[in-house]
């Protein structure tokens, strides 16, 4: 697997793990909050249920208090509308909208809420019939054409003789529903065959449940109270937060992966560029100097510190390779005894000069040979011979220009290549050399050392052999003419 793929895979795995952990955490938080939300709704539902029961109890309590009054009993017996009105109006409240005293014929004797309205027949009303039949009624029925929670009870004189009925009623309206739901986030809806009420404009309740009320079946069909939520704003906010978190995490993950992708590409491109330089080097598409220049360029460019360090290390390594290469090259082109260029180097240089001569650059060469060198060796030994060679070479090197190339051609024979030099110029230099060596006194050799010189200059169409042959011929003549002299081509 590529490094890029490895890094990307591992990083994505880590990010995914973080993402999963985050999802787990937010999901846990959501579930905790949802539980709390459900618990709150349950408590609120129970609170509403309790309030509703309190309303019913209040109706029953009010009726019982009035029934317990002897004056009320007397008022019912004597149809004392005024007294019953005065009593009942004291008990009208937000929990009691209507208090009616009804005789056994089902005729209203008094209304607490309407002083002058009475004597109407309500004997056909379900709650009246139920109270007359079963002693009490607690349920929903129409009272004065309004749907009410009604508690009706038969009133008895001395607890035995029925004398009439008291009905205490609470109108089922928006105010009642609002009072039940007050201070909660719940909503209540009431539905019957006649009307539909709700504490909210939105009729649809979420998680609706019926109010558990112990009401007797009344004349109103399909009457029911439902409690629920019109919206789950809190939960929705939580859901939204959860979704936002997930989306955010997903977005961050994508951004991070992209950022990682581009960062990796950038870094790996630099590494790849460096490795490509090395590949080009060993596949001979680049030499060491080109490698060095390319790497040097890389170190100058804006790049990461790591790549820069590697580039610097590679540059230093290339530098060493180049130095070693140069040393080897020098070693392979230098005569070890005299430290002058060897024959191979001289041949390369001669080839180079001949090439340059085609562009009009002229040169001359001098073939030099130490006279009677075999005698020196034979007489004084090779060490002295080498001594003569070394010092002769040093003296010659001291006599030439920096642009000149002096080398050991073989044995006691030397070749001097003089760029941009005419035959005359070459003869002058040869004479300076001859004279200098002739006058030099060797430390370990007591005899005078002489040298013969064959000078040739470049002619058009020359080859290495042709010019060397002319110089060699001139040297031959110098030897044959008595040595320690200079001869040149004809």
């Amino acid at each position, binding site marked *: 697997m590529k490094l890029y793929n490895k890094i990307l895979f591992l990083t994505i795995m880590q990010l995914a793990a973080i993402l999963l952990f985050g999802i787990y955490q937010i999901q846990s938080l959501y579930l905790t909050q949802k539980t709390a939300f459900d618990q709150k709704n349950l408590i609120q539902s129970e609170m509403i249920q309790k309030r509703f029961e309190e309303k019913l109890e209040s109706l029953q309590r009010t009726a019982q208090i009035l029934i317990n009054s002897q004056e009320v009993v007397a008022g019912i017996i*004597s*149809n*004392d*509308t*005024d*007294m019953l009105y005065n009593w009942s109006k004291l008990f009208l409240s937000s929990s009691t909208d209507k208090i009616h005293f009804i*005789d056994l014929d089902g*005729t209203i*004797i008094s209304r607490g809420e309407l*002083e*002058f*309205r*009475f*004597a*109407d027949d309500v004997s056909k009303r379900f709650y009246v019939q139920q109270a007359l039949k079963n002693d009490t009624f607690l349920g929903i029925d129409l009272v004065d054409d309004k749907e009410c929670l009604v508690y009706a009870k038969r009133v008895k004189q001395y607890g035995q003789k029925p004398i009439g009925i008291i009905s205490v009623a609470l109108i089922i309206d928006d105010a009642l529903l609002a009072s039940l739901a007050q201070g909660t986030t719940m909503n209540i809806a009431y539905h019957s065959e006649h009307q539909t009420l709700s504490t909210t404009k939105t009729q649809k309740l979420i998680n609706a449940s019926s109010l558990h009320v112990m009401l007797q079946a009344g004349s109103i069909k399909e009457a029911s109270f439902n409690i629920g939520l019109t919206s789950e704003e809190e939960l929705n906010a939580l859901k939204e937060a959860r979704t936002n978190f997930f989306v955010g995490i997903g977005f961050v993950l994508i951004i991070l992966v992209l950022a990682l992708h581009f960062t990796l590409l950038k870094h790996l491109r630099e590494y790849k560029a460096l490795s490509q330089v090395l590949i080009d080097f060993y596949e001979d598409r680049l030499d060491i100097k080109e490698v060095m220049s390319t790497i040097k360029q890389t170190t100058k460019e804006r790049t990461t510190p790591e790549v820069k360090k590697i580039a610097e290390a590679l540059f230093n390594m290339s530098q060493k390779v180049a130095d070693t290469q140069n040393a080897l090259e020098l070693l392979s082109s230098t005569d070890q005894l005299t430290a002058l260029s060897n024959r191979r180097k001289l041949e390369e240089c001669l080839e180079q000069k001949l090439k340059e001569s085609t562009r009009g650059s002229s040169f001359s060469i001098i073939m030099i040979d130490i006279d009677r060198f075999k005698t020196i060796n034979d007489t004084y030994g090779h060490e002295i011979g080498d001594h003569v060679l070394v010092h002769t070479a040093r003296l010659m090197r001291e006599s030439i220009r920096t642009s000149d190339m002096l080398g050991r051609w073989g044995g006691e024979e030397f070749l001097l290549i003089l760029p941009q030099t005419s035959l005359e110029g070459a003869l002058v230099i040869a004479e300076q050399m001859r004279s200098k060596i002739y006058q030099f006194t060797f430390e370990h050799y007591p005899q005078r050392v002489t040298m013969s010189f064959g000078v040739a200059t470049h002619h058009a169409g020359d080859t290495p052999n042709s010019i060397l042959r002319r110089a060699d011929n001139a040297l031959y003549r110098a030897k044959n003419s008595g040595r320690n002299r200079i001869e040149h081509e004809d």
Partner: protein
Amino acid sequence: MKIKRFLSIVLLVCISLFATEKQKLVFGVNPNKSTTEIQILYAELISYLEKELEQEVVLVISKDYNHLITLIEQGSIDIASISPKLYAILRQKEPETHYLATIQFADEQSISKSTYRSLILTLADSPIASMSDLKGKSFGFTDPDSTSGYLYPHFMMYQNSIDPTKDLGKIYMLKKHPKIIQALFEKSIEAGAIYDGVYHALPKEEQQKIRILAVSEEIPYDAMIASKRLDSALVVKIRELLLAFHPKQALPSTIAGFEEKPLFLYDHLNTIEY
């Protein structure tokens, strides 16, 4: 010695407080109107008495007609304005009250009158055209102890061969005379009985909506009486003050003054059978 002096001071303070409390004159009335109406009706008279007697006068409205007799018998009130019938009943008992005067009311022509009449009414558009039509009809009385709201209506029904205990339909006790009118207009009752002052106080257009079925003979208005426990000199003074009382403005259905009436007029009410 110190203890005796201290106890003497405490006793003196208690007597002073008691004396201060007794300076209030308690004035009892029947609940024949709403509390507000009664307070307005007697406001000028109470203010007049307080000023002349230099005593605070406390108005007490009894729970019902009969309750006023109880309050008088208990000595809880000093003077009272009592309905004629109640006074007649009270006179039959051991006489424990002083008769002070009879109330005069101004009629719609601002003429002061010390007598009134009981009326039996129905709505003008009612099918009840005469007393005989009352049979089986719901009826509103004020209070069993009311003269014009119960006693005379019963008397008039008997005179027209109607037994109110048997022949009428549902019977309701409305206590206050104006409530009879309101209940009629609401059609809660089909007929009712009131004293004529309430009818005359109605606006013309409302009077036109009412049909009068029967009118009683003259009945003396409420009697002002004083408790036997009250100081005789104070009783004389109150009587004089009542007879001298003249309101600043004699409006219909307001107290126009007082006059002494022969007591047989009240005793006559005991002879009425019902």
